[in-house]
């Protein structure tokens, strides 16, 4: 689900205006209390009426923001409103914490004074900006994934799928270019590769090109040994000649020129498998973009939450 698309914008419009209005009101109160409109200006501190109010609001919002995790993982079946609405509120309220807590923290980012306050300020900034970055990435990367990775699979299953590709390529090549005995042995039969869970079972059907031995197709074996097999087996295929679509195209073109017509379809299938591998590499990179920010966002949020609780306790004790 894209966060901001034409369909979702109506849900965000209310929150967007609410955040703008709340920020404006907070700034207005802050500068009015500080004496901007008459009198000498003094920065209202965190314990001033506006500063304290913003601190309480910011703390309450952070506590709410933290609830998104149990909402998505622990309370999934509960009737607590759709996760989509929770995410919308999470986004916009999280954005609102930045002005509120900067006003509460007296614009202080200098560690020479109160280290905890400054660390909290910087953590808040990092959390909010990582969240904003995440929202932007979530709007861009899925589109790219859709356009550029048509063979997309589940990220955690990439290595599993590649292992199947490797087996399939091996069987195809052996059946086409190996000995006649090997061709018979490599006749594809439905193989149950999934696990049985209750009544459900997954079956992986290896259905390659017709396993027919083709004479004078030894070049296929050499090509497979030299390029395809290492590329499909490698943890990172970036160094392979097949990682580049142009070079891969040229290599397969050259291979096909040396193959008789009946083996052309096998070469095409190998090219397709390699193309999938390239897409999986791209998918892995996009996936890293899509979720690395989240790791930073969550980890820093946890640190922020822990230190915020300590800050609240100390602030109330020595108010």
């Amino acid at each position, binding site marked *: 689900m894209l966060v901001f698309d034409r369909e979702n914008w109506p849900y965000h419009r209310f929150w967007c205006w609410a955040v703008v209005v709340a920020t404006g009101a907070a700034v207005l109160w802050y500068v009015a209390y500080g004496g901007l409109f008459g009198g000498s200006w003094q920065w209202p501190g965190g314990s001033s009426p506006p500063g304290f109010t913003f601190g309480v609001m910011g703390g309450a919002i952070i506590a709410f923001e933290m609830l998104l995790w149990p909402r998505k993982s622990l309370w999934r079946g509960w009737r607590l409103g759709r996760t989509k609405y929770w995410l919308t509120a999470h986004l916009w309220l999280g954005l609102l914490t930045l002005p509120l807590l900067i006003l509460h923290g007296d614009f202080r980012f200098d560690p020479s004074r109160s*280290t905890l306050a400054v660390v909290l300020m910087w953590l808040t900034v990092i959390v909010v900006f990582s969240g904003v970055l995440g929202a932007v990435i979530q709007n861009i990367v899925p589109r790219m994934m859709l356009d550029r990775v048509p063979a997309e699979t589940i990220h955690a299953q990439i290595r*599993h799928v590649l292992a199947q590709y490797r087996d399939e390529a091996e069987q195809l090549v052996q059946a086409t270019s190996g000995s006649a005995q090997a061709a018979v042995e490599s006749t594809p039969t439905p193989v149950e590769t*999934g*696990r049985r869970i209750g009544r459900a079972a997954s079956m992986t059907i290896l259905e390659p*090109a017709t396993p027919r031995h083709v004479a004078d197709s030894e070049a296929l074996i050499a090509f497979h040994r030299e390029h395809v097999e290492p590329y499909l087996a490698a943890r990172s295929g970036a160094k392979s000649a097949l990682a580049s679509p142009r070079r891969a195209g040229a290599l397969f073109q050259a291979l096909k020129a040396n193959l008789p017509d009946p083996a052309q379809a096998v070469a095409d299938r190998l090219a397709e498998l390699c193309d999938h591998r390239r897409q999986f590499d791209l998918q892995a990179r996009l996936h890293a973009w899509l979720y*690395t920010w989240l790791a930073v966002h969550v980890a820093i949020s946890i640190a922020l939450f822990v230190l915020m609780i300590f*800050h609240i306790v*100390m602030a109330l004790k020595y108010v």
Partner: protein
Amino acid sequence: MSETGKQRRSRIELGYYRRPDAAARRRGRLVLLALVAAGAWVAAAPAWEGGAAGVRLFQQSRLASRGPLAGPHAMWDSSCEACHVPLAPMSDSRWRPALAWSKGAADRKCQTCHAGPPHHKNQLERDVPSCAECHKDHRGRDSSLLAMADAVCTSCHGDLERHADPSAGTLATAAHATEFDADPAHHPVFTPPPSGDDSSVGRILFSHGRHMAEGLVSAPGGAAFRYGSLEPADRERYGWSAGRDGAPVQLRCDSCHRLEVTPAAANPELAQAIVPTANGVMQPVRYERDCRACHPLDIDPKAPDRRVRHGLAPSVVADDLRRYYTAQAVLAEPTLLGRYVPARPMPGRPAPAQAEQAGKAADEKTLIALKRLFGTAAVDQARGGQDLPLGRGGCVECHEFKTMSRPLVDLEAAAGLAMKPVVARSTWYESAWFNHTPHRALECASCHPGATEAGEKIERILPKVEDCTACHAPARTRNGRAEGGAGMSCVLCHRYHNGDEPGGGLAATARMPAVPMTLEQFLSGGPTQSRDR
């Protein structure tokens, strides 16, 4: 040969989601790291107390404190409870309604060291803020605990009629003060203390205009007072230089008016050095230091070294002089001591003629000396002969008589003489505080314009609001010249506590803490925090 979506799906393991993927595992490790780091900081902070500068950023006091304490409180930077009462707000004024159980708790802590006497007797209880409402700390070592917004003052002084208890007496200050400028509607005009109403208090008969004139002449063309008339030890102080004995004396303001100073006597090399005190007030003018060189209390031209001590009552001066002249007579004729002279005339035993004559001579000399000090026309002539500006001379040149029962024609009349006491002021505007030290670069006449004019009155010499607002005003440009920009907050000139006794200052008895503390109690924040209690 290309795969269908169904074929692709069929390659996926059914229970794949039961195992966390690499991204989730990475996220879990990061969360754990963040938790450990945050917890370690909180847990290990006490161990970093007093560590090296880099480590100090993580110490415990930095976890709770919003910033370093001001210099005067620096020793309690790591002792929160020296000033804070746990769970009691520092400022009750801000946390209304104040929590009943903690009301005033923090103020009492402050008052362990600072008595904080009331502002005025007619202030209303509800208007009295907490200590921390005005004195904000944790703003850095160099911050001022007196720096506060004008609104703290103008919240009451903007409309004092609503914030004063009329039953406690009439207001001694303006009813409306909203900001400092030359508009009387915003800030009251400066008012010197009333003079002349109390006939028992004397004033110095003094003309700034005459003293600032070259040669101290009383009128153009009059006899000038020259450096040669001063004793050699005094000349340099009044601007003399070698070869200028015949030059007329030219006084400057600092010939008599000097900043209050602290002698730096601890260091022998700096024994002569003096530094201005923090208050920056002018020392009161004192006769011995500022007047004696030109106005010596001579009693006899034949005894130029013999002078009367300043500050004695006339009757005491008369007794001293009588003893002096009697002693002089005995020194001249020691045989006088060998003859019995009864205290009062006795029948058949007349006083020896020589002793009687000596007594009368001493009385006469005493009377002449008293007249010289307490004024006759003859003395004016004598002073004229010494090339001094004409004046009455002696004590009455500057002081007024309190009582004079009869003319000074005999010694008995001296017993009835009394001078009006003089209050030597170093502060004229008692409700405000002024530091001369930062203003030393200015000519005195910039703020005291009437000081060099003849016939001046004190009202003309003391500065007015307009003299201050040339600098103490918002920054502006007038006729192409930058003006203003200096501070203009209320606390620049005014202090809050002990307002009914503004002259008391920080050392006033009312500001003393109730119970003196031992050093250990002091460092731990007061008697209640002491380990020995």
